[in-house]
């Protein structure tokens, strides 16, 4: 069995769904679920192998450029693959129930399989070009899934926004790849590592930093770091299982994964590391602040995702890819859990997403409540849940590397506890605040089984033996009482404040406009884009008139129609003009060939 199977299974599913079973939603769903479950099985079966293989030689141009379609199956890939396939499988199963009545079920599952294919490609890629291609494919499938309900204007807009924002980042990524290629002459990870090990880096440190930062641009787009974070909250317009799978657990983590893959480059450049760490820390803080004032249950979770991704990026910048991957791994479980839990709630409340119209769901949906509670505990790093271990590692590293970032991280931990307890209290406790919430019922087995599995993992995944078993990356940190107490204190303070403030409230006690309006990012972008667009349009129109119409097209038309301007009056693009031009062409060609040497 080879890792290539992991790529083939979802691809097969895509092909089968789009060319075969498109007419039947249920059949397509089964095909898709089978393929992802198969992928999970293959991943588990391949846990003990370690191989890098070249599937085939794709582009071979002498000694200038070699690009192989090659797969890399190391521990990093295995751990990531496990997360992707496991969460993928659970989300697929959950979708079976969640999307039962959707008209375009076949398309939905086809796109999910496409996503699994592309994500697998990113994880297994052994060179930057291949990774970039799958990176783009992920963007496309994400676009399709966010815009699944494309008849809804907001969904279509959100899809477009996600696509365009990601393109900005990808542009940087592409430039980074080209720079690295120019610098080193190779695009494969092994080749780059060897080049660095060869000690060539010293001479071109500046360029290397620039290249690393360009690559980071790609991660900024995909992992929704400030200032390109604006697409992720909007992307919640997609179906909730999609949000769980790609906008919480896997795709947005691809940016972090990529950074860890090229971690050796970041290590080689101190400046790049610092920039990355600060961008991450800043995003974490910003997103956490914004999360405290949101009313939409999915948006709160989206901002929380942003903030946790900020953590990961920060710690990558601080030089510990292991800690980032460890947090990615635990985060995937509890955030998928929270999203699927939110999905269950939304499903039960007839697609109501405003938390102020919920309430009192504790008694009506006890299992969901339990699972959601566990997820929340893990997210706020309650001691001895999985989130606790990974956050502990991050705080520890921040403490050693950069005190200021440690303070920010601690603040974010406090805010996380605060907004999550707010969410929990408002949604589940108190009395129902709307009719839908009052009639909510516990969801079906097929929906809560994935929840329970994820809840279980959210608790145990952090323990070292489990993490070892599941091939996660483990950071090398030691128990630190100071960090433990800081973490505990911030958590308790945040959660306590949240409980006290929101228990039995019927609406937001105090609205802070700046936070509720997400620091006016969207407005600012809107303004900038509008003005920039106008300006740009003006410039482009000018250029168009000058170059395209004036010189290129106009010039050529003029050339074609009238090498002999003499004849413009008579010749208007008819046969005679053509034969005349033919004659002139013959004359010029013969003259040029024979006499002009």
């Amino acid at each position, binding site marked *: 069995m080879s890792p290539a199977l992991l790529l083939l299974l979802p691809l097969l599913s895509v092909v089968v769904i789009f060319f075969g079973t498109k007419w039947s939603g249920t059949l397509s769903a089964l095909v898709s679920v089978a393929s992802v479950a198969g992928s999970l099985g293959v991943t588990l079966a391949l846990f003990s192998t370690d191989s890098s293989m070249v599937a085939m030689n794709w582009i071979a141009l002498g000694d200038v450029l070699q690009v192989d379609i090659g797969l890399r199956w190391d521990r990093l890939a295995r751990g990531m693959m496990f997360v992707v396939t496991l969460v993928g499988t659970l989300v697929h199963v959950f979708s079976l129930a969640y999307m039962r009545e959707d008209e375009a079920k076949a398309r939905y599952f086809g796109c999910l399989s496409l996503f699994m294919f592309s994500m697998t490609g990113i994880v297994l890629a052994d060179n930057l070009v291949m990774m970039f291609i799958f990176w783009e494919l992920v963007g496309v499938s994400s676009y399709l899934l966010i815009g699944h309900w494309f008849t809804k204007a907001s969904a279509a807009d959100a899809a477009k926004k996600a696509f365009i924002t990601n393109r900005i980042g990808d542009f940087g990524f592409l430039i980074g790849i080209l720079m690295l290629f120019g610098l080193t002459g190779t695009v494969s990870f092994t080749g780059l590592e060897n080049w660095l090990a060869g000690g060539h880096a010293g001479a071109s440190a500046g360029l290397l930093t620039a290249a690393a930062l360009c690559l980071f641009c790609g991660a900024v787009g995909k992992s929704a770091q400030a200032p390109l974070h604006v697409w992720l909250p909007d992307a919640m317009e997609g179906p909730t299982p999609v949000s769980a799978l790609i906008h919480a657990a896997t795709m947005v983590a691809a940016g972090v994964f990529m950074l860890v893959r090229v971690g050796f480059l970041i290590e080689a450049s101190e400046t790049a590391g610092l920039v990355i760490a600060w961008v991450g820390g800043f995003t974490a803080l910003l997103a956490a602040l914004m999360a405290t004032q949101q009313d939409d249950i999915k948006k709160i979770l989206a901002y929380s995702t942003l903030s946790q991704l900020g953590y990961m990026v920060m710690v990558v910048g601080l030089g510990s890819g292991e800690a980032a991957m460890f947090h990615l791994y635990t985060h995937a479980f509890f955030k998928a859990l929270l999203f699927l839990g939110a999905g269950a709630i939304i499903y039960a409340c007839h697609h109501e997403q405003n938390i102020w119209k919920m309430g009192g769901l504790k008694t009506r949906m006890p299992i969901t409540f339990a699972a959601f509670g566990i997820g929340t505990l893990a997210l706020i790093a309650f001691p001895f849940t999985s989130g606790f271990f990974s956050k502990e590692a991050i705080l520890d590293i921040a403490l050693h590397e950069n005190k200021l970032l440690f303070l920010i991280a601690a603040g974010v931990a406090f805010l996380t506890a605060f907004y999550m307890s707010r969410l929990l209290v408002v949604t589940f406790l108190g009395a129902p605040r709307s009719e839908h919430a009052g009639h909510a019922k516990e969801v079906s087995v097929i929906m809560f089984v994935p929840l329970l599995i994820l809840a279980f993992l959210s608790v145990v995944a952090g323990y070292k033996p489990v993490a070892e078993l599941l091939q996660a990356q483990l950071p090398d940190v030691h128990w630190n009482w100071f960090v433990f107490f800081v973490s505990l204190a911030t958590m308790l303070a945040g959660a306590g404040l949240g409980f006290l403030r929101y228990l039995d409230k019927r609406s937001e006690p105090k609205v802070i406009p700046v936070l509720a309006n997400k620091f006016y990012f969207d407005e600012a972008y809107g303004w900038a884009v509008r003005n920039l667009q106008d300006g740009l349009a003006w410039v482009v129109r000018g250029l168009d008139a000058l170059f395209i119409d004036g010189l290129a097209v106009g010039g050529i038309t003029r050339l074609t129609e009238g090498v002999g301007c*003499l004849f413009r009056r008579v*010749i208007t693009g008819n046969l005679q003009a053509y034969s005349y031009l033919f*004659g002139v062409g013959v004359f010029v060609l013969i003259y040029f060939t024979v006499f002009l040497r």
Partner: protein
Amino acid sequence: MPLPLFILFSALTLGFAVAVIANRNPVTAALCLVVSFVGLAALFIGLSAFFIGIVQILVYAGAVMVLFLFIIMLMDIEEEERKHFDRLRTAGGIAVGIGVAFLIGGVLWDFDYGKASLDDVPVQFEAAITLREADADSGIVRSANATAALREGRLKDVALVGEKLFNDYNLHLQMIAVLILIATIGVVTLGKKDSPAPDSGSSGGDKASES
């Protein structure tokens, strides 16, 4: 070919070719073309290409010209109107023509064969006979008739051409057959009329297969 004759026929060919272009009446133009081609055929014969010369007269003066005239009559085409005639256009056409002619002249100036005369390269009958006999001995088909004529110092052109055509150029002959078939199909379909009335365009097809 004696020089005066050569000059006469070349002048005939060139002069009437120009007349084709200069004449406004298509019937006159067609007739000028016939004369020009007769001059050309004479030049061919002067170059000892007797067969080609005869074919030139048969095909062009015979078949093609009749076809042209037939179509002209059929469509009842009158003279081109004078009003569109434009001096600039004429000047441009002539300029391009002269330009290309100059280029060709420039090229030929340096060309060895451009300065040779026919007397420099007489037909070498002895050598030809020897070679042909050797060929015939080794089993290659050679017309005995033509060889005999060569012995008498005559160039039996038709036999030699036929020998070449059916020995070596068999493949091309087949291709030409396909070409004429294509042309026939095409002319027949293009000439079809909507109504079941007799179609006049198909006569072109017959001519094509004739040539």
